[in-house]
């Protein structure tokens, strides 16, 4: 009743009834993997809420103070005001430790959800036209999330994060020509300088979050406008969306998911300790702790720094710093390739002006793309493991150098082997000629009204037939039984029957 009156009231002033009605009617496809992005969104909400609370207690100051608080072992020690305020947050503020740990856990899960979301988008081909813009925005969001994770991690000014900042300073130094200037301007002078904590704070609570919220809004608006992709299935075509209506089913479920995400983060923050900075102690440039690892999302860079072989190169008469290849060139390349991927994929699949794709593919239907993705993921997982090579060496009692060499070999071999395995697995799983191996998205087009250029269709049909014939050659079943499978798979096959028939003609 109140809601109705409120809507009437706003409509009298700014209109919007039509929009609200259409919005409530909007259909969202249901699939568990579509929730990964939502989980990231809800983590961000938790991050903002807990983060605002933390700002009430955190003092972003490098000023040297002597600790006199309630935690005995640190009493009388020199530390920065920033570190003291975070220790105080843990010991003297009610629920302060809980909120700080929930905040930190939310950041870890946030990035986890983002990476899984990225994988989902990649393996189902959801980045293809017309969704390239959201692929770019999503990558920018991931970069910003990593940046904010690192800056937030560095704020407490504890021994572990201070060491991380020292490495970041070295990485800045290693940039050609402007490296020393970048390092000096960022830190306000030669390391450790005094300005970095207060600057990171502004970056962490203002600049990056503003960018994240802005880009995320565009990200979601584009999803809203383009409508979500969906997997193939009964009655699902390139021209419709099948799923639950926003109101009330989808909204209820999504709010439910939000609450469950908060619950999981609260449980983690309350029950699973992480980053106990009071045990690490305040940062002192001459101190360091062993078995030091960064947050998980920096693990690939840590591994790259550890596994990259040492080299001495002089270029144009200058000594090339060691950090530049693993810590500057490599991550730059990583993101450059990710950003370029939709274009590369278009080129590889011959869809330069290609058709729009609203139906997703299953990973098995694209053995090569899936294998490439799996191989790349394996590469980064090995790097991540390399970030803890000292711990492996300790636990398994293997000499450190042996572990390093093994990991270097694994870094090359594992992606190839596991990628090949994934390829093989996809081929075997996809033997039943699906309602559309090859290029299933064209299948929907065949039935659609606004057909793609004929040349396009012809090209993809040819590709399709070759895939199909090789698949049937390997499979024990005859063409006839393959047809039976494709027809038995429900109404979809009926709609695609024309294209199915054409495959058989081709073979």
């Amino acid at each position: 009743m109140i809601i109705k009156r409120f809507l009437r009231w706003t409509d009298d002033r700014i209109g919007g009834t039509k929009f609200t009605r259409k919005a409530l009617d909007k259909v969202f496809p249901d699939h568990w993997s579509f929730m990964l992005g939502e989980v990231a969104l809800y983590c961000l909400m938790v991050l903002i809420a807990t983060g605002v609370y933390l700002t009430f207690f955190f003092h972003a100051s490098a000023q040297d103070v002597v600790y006199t608080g309630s935690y005995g072992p640190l009493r009388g020690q020199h530390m920065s005001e920033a570190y003291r305020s975070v220790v105080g947050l843990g010991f003297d503020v009610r629920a302060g430790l809980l909120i700080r740990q929930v905040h930190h856990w939310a950041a870890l899960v946030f990035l986890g959800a983002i990476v899984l979301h990225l994988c989902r988008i990649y393996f189902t081909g959801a980045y293809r036209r017309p969704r390239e813009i959201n692929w770019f925005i999503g990558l920018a969001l991931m970069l910003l999330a990593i940046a904010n994770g690192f800056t937030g991690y560095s704020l407490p000014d504890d021994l572990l994060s201070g060491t991380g900042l020292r490495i970041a300073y070295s990485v800045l130094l290693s940039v050609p020509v402007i490296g020393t200037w970048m390092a000096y301007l960022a830190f306000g002078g030669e390391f450790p300088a005094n300005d970095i904590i207060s600057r990171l704070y502004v970056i962490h609570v203002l600049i990056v979050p503003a960018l994240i919220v802005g880009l995320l809004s565009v990200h979601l608006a584009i999803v809203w406008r383009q409508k979500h992709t969906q997997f193939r299935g009964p009655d699902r075509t390139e021209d419709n969306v099948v799923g639950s209506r926003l109101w009330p089913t989808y909204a209820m479920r999504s709010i439910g998911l939000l609450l469950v995400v908060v619950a999981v983060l609260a449980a983690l923050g309350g029950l699973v300790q992480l980053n106990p900075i009071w045990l690490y102690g305040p940062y002192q440039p001459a101190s360091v702790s062993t078995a030091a690892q960064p947050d998980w999302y920096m693990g690939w860079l840590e591994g790259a720094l550890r596994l990259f072989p040492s080299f001495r190169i002089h270029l144009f008469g200058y000594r090339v710093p060691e950090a530049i290849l693993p810590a500057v060139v490599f991550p730059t390349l990583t993101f450059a390739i990710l950003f370029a991927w939709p274009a590369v994929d278009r080129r590889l699949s011959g869809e330069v002006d290609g058709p729009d794709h609203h139906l997703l593919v299953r990973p098995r239907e694209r053995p090569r793309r899936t294998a490439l993705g799996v191989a790349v993921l394996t590469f980064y997982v090995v790097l991540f493991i390399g970030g803890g090579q000292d711990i492996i060496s300790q636990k398994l009692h293997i000499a450190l150098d042996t572990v390093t060499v093994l990991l270097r070999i694994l870094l090359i071999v594992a992606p190839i082997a596991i990628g090949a395995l994934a390829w093989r697995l996809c081929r075997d799983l996809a033997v039943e000629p699906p309602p559309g191996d090859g290029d299933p998205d064209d299948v929907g087009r065949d039935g659609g009204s606004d057909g793609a250029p004929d040349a396009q269709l012809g090209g993809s049909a040819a590709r399709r037939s070759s895939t199909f014939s090789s698949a049937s050659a390997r499979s024990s079943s005859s063409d006839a039984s393959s047809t039976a499978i494709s027809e038995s798979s429900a109404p979809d096959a009926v709609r695609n029957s024309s294209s199915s028939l054409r495959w058989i003609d081709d073979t």
Partner: protein
Amino acid sequence: MVALLVAAAAAVAFVVVFWSGGRRTQLEGALLALAFGGSGVGLVVWANHLIGGGEQSEDRTPLRATPEEIRELDAELGRGEVIARRVWLRRSAVAAGGALGIALVSPLRSLGPSPGKQLLHTAWGDGVRVVAEDGTPVAAADVPADGLVTVFPEGAVGAADAQAVLVRVDPSLLHLPRGRDSWAPGGLLAYSKVCTHAGCPVGLYQADSHELLCPCHQSSFDVLRGAVPVSGPAAWPLPQLPLVVGADGLLRVSGDFSEPVGPGWWKA
């Protein structure tokens, strides 16, 4: 309904626990989790089993403009051609915009001092006494046989770039680079504690293999041969200090490090 009631109860319990004071992180976390989780599960079950509604289908409407709309837009854009026509006016505007852009980023210069030659030098210099982390002068006899002592130049205790480590080895094992024969009085060696790889403190010393180890990325350096890197990602030796034992038995240096300390930048 059960889930929602549990949630309500847990939320009330959280408030009670919070107001009763004390730091009960685990209990508070668990209660919050119950409160949120109960509500969430309740809503999802409600949505899935009680509301239903089945699968709905909605058509995708093409977002693309029709050719006619595109022509209309082009016509509107065409009005802007008067801007392009005045070439020199347009170029002046671009120049003004570019200059303004440069003017706007130039305040970034205030963020820090010029690197200058600061990176090349530390507080060490001829005659500077070696002091420990508490500022007390270090005597040659203070350095244990297999141990490692972190030291600073007198007057700059805690300086990140000047930190150094002292180790003592058997002088007969030494193979120092040429010109450093007198830098290790009595087998005492002083090296920069800043790793040449990524700048972490080289804080571990394995006395039996005479290697300094950086715990960050596992580079190790052979102290007998001028701290050349033995394994790991570091490529350059740790800079060495020319140590001198004074008449009073206290340690001094006769100059700055053999090289600029820490990881490299693009230096000639």
